[in-house]
């Protein structure tokens, strides 16, 4: 890769990552949301990995980080659903906006997103889905880049 690419890719990837975080956080107002914002953050990380290579990349992503974050994202979604199941009778009930009025008011103020709009747990669901998609897409690209070394060792 040429010297111009190696000079400006790292600052630009920081700008792209912050834009992806902004898209995740505005999922209930603007077009976008969890899946789209997570793909944008993964795009920024993959940009750095391709231009610099796996050894010299500024983002050092280990195997434990990938598996931990993916588990955190998927389990966060399930636990938000289970919280709705145990307080009311419904799985993934929107506890911030109590449409049927069947839970005490404590849970409505606890799970509500502090926002001008009354969106309930929808921004939290966007957040955990964004974490999961970001780590999942980066893991696939890192596995493809590392496979040459492992396949070359197996053939000898």
């Amino acid at each position, binding site marked *: 890769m040429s010297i111009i690419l*190696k*000079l400006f890719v*790292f*600052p630009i990837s*920081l*700008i792209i*990552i*912050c*834009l992806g*975080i*902004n898209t*995740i*956080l*505005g999922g209930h*107002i*603007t077009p976008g949301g969890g899946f789209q914002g997570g793909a944008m*953050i993964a795009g920024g990380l993959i940009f750095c990995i391709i231009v*610099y290579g796996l*050894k*010299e*990349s*500024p*983002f*050092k*992503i*280990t195997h*434990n*980080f990938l598996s931990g*974050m993916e588990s955190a994202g998927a389990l966060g979604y399930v636990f938000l659903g289970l919280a709705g199941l145990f307080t009311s009778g419904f799985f993934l009930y929107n506890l911030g906006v109590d449409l049927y009025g069947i839970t005490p008011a404590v849970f409505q103020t606890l799970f509500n*997103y*502090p*926002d*001008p*709009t009354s969106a309930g747990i929808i*921004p939290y669901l966007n*957040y955990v889905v*964004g*974490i999961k998609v970001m780590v999942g897409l980066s893991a696939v690209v890192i596995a493809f880049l590392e496979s040459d070394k492992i396949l070359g060792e197996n053939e000898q």
Partner: protein
Amino acid sequence: MIFYIGPLVLGFFLGFIIGTRIKPSPESKLKFDKKVYAIVFIVAIGVAYLLGAFPYYQDIPLASGYASAIIGIIIGKLLFGRSKSSEGQIS
């Protein structure tokens, strides 16, 4: 006026998690020192001002999620982004 802490806290946390993964690589020829991060911070505040706030938010004229994300990345790098010798903290 009141600040809505939802985007500030969540954006800072995600930026902090990504900032802990920036580690310097000692054997390459490129060095990203403190000047680069200062310029990136100024450009990011400019981008946040030009983006504007979300439609129903009326507290500050910036994009609050964007600004707290770039602050989180820089603080995460300063706190945990050490060299490869002490990698056993968060891996």
